[in-house]
C-alpha cells in the first residue's frame, strides 16, 4: 500500500515560498521549482516578475495562437506580456539585479550551507551547465530564498555545514524552504532558525536530515 509522502510537494514548496511575496515587490524566479511560485501569488498581492533575459512584467504562458519565438523567459519557455510589461537589453536587466533594484530572488540549490553560501551551477568533472544569472542574483538582490529538496537521491542532507561544490555566492541566502520545512535568519551574521515544519514532519526527522548547525527552538 502506498502511503502519502509526508512533507511538501514541489507545488506546496512553491506555495510556501509565495507567502514571502509582498505587495509592490519586483521578483526574479529561478528555473525549476521556483518558476511554480508564479502560480501561487496570494490574492491582493501585486508583484512584478522580472525575467533576466530582458523583461519586466512577465505574463502567463501563451495560448497556441499567441506563441511568439521572440518572447521567452529565462528558462527559454514561451510567455506573454501584460499591460505593464517592458523589454530591455541584458545590461539594463542586470543593472536591475546588480544595482539592488530587485526585492526578492527565489532560486533552486544543489547545496546551501549554514552560513548562507549557495552552490547551484556546476559539479566538477560531471556537469557543466554554467551559472547563467545566478551569481549576479545572489550578489545583488536584496533578499534571496533557496528552494530545494532537503536531501539528495541518496538521502544525504543538502543543507550542510559547508558547501562541497563550487559556490554560486557567499553568505547570501536569507531563507531556506525545503520539502521538510522553513528556516530563516535575520541578517548575514545570524544563524538559521527553524521557523516551521511541513505537515507530517516531526522535529526529529528534520534534525536527522540536516547537517547544518541551526537553531531548533
Amino acid at each position, binding site marked *: 500500500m502506498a502511503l502519502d509522502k509526508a512533507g511538501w510537494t514541489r507545488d506546496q514548496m512553491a506555495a510556501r515560498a509565495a507567502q514571502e511575496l509582498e505587495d509592490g515587490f519586483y521578483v526574479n524566479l529561478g528555473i525549476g521549482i521556483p518558476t511554480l511560485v508564479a502560480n501561487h501569488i496570494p490574492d491582493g498581492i501585486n508583484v512584478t516578475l522580472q525575467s533576466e533575459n530582458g523583461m519586466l512584467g512577465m505574463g502567463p504562458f*501563451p*495560448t497556441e495562437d499567441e506563441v511568439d519565438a521572440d518572447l521567452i523567459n529565462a528558462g527559454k519557455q514561451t510567455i506573454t506580456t501584460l499591460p505593464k510589461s517592458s523589454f530591455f537589453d541584458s*545590461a539594463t536587466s542586470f543593472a536591475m539585479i546588480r544595482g539592488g533594484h530587485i526585492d526578492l530572488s527565489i532560486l533552486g540549490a544543489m547545496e546551501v550551507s549554514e552560513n548562507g553560501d549557495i552552490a547551484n551551477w556546476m559539479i566538477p568533472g560531471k556537469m557543466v551547465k554554467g551559472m547563467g544569472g545566478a*551569481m549576479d542574483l545572489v550578489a545583488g538582490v536584496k533578499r534571496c530564498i533557496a528552494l530545494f529538496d532537503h536531501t539528495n537521491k541518496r538521502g544525504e542532507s543538502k543543507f550542510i555545514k559547508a558547501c562541497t561544490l563550487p559556490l554560486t555566492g557567499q553568505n547570501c541566502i536569507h531563507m531556506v524552504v525545503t520539502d521538510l520545512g522553513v528556516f530563516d535568519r535575520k541578517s548575514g551574521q545570524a544563524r538559521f532558525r527553524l521557523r516551521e515544519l511541513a505537515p507530517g514532519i516531526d522535529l526529529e526527522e528534520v534534525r536527522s536530515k540536516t547537517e547544518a548547525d541551526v537553531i531548533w527552538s
Partner: protein
Amino acid sequence: MSKIYQTASDAMAGLCKDGVTVMSGGFGLCGIPENLIAAMRDSGAKDLTVISNNAGVDGFGLGQLLETKQVKKMISSYVGENKEFERQYLGGELELEFNPQGTLAERIRAGGAGIPGFYTKTGVGTLIAEGKEHKDFPNSNGDVETFILETGLKADVTIIKAWKGDAEGNLIFKATARNFSPMMATAGTVTVAEVDEIVPVGSLDPNFIHTPGIFVQRIVQAKCEKRIEQRTVREG
C-alpha cells in the same frame, strides 16, 4: 557607401578569418543571427573565440560551429542545452570561460564604451574571482564590501539579429530577442546585423531606435527559422 548586403555570405565576406574573436547575439535560440552563423560555418574559418551567452543547441545556432570544430574557445554564461559542447569541453577539446550573465553583459557594454574594467560584487568568493584583483569599497550603510575587477570585452566581428533596420544601420529589436545584441553592436570592430525586414531610411521613429547606425557596418535582410526551445502553452 551602402551598408546593405544581399546575402548573409556576402555580408560576412572578408570577416571570417582563422583565429578571430566573434560576438554573437541571442539568449538561448531567441534572437540569434541564424544566417550569419551559417555563413561563418560555411566559410570554414577555424580557431574562433566566440563570445555568446549560450552555445546554441546540438546542430543549430552556434551548435553548428561546435560540430565542425571551428571553435577554439567559448566565453558564455550557460551552456546546459548542448551535449556536444559538454562532450568537447569535458574531453579537453574546447576552452571555456564561464562568465556570470550580468558580468558578461557589463564586460561587453564596457568594451564597447571604451571602459577597460570595472569592479563588481558578482562572483566574490567563487571560482570566478580567482586570480582577479579584489578591492574594498564602502556601501551605503558605511560597511566595507569586497569587489572584483572585471575587464571590458571587444570583438573583431559582431554578428547580431534585429527586427527592423535601415540602410543607415539603425536597428530596432523585438521583445526578448534584444538581449545582448545592443551591447555587442558597440563592441565589435565590424558589426553585421541580419534583420527580418529592411525598411526605408526615415520610416523608423528616431525616438524608438534601439541601436543607432554608427554601431552597425553591414546589414542584410534574411529569413530566420526562429526555433523554439521550450514551447510552453496554456489552454486557450
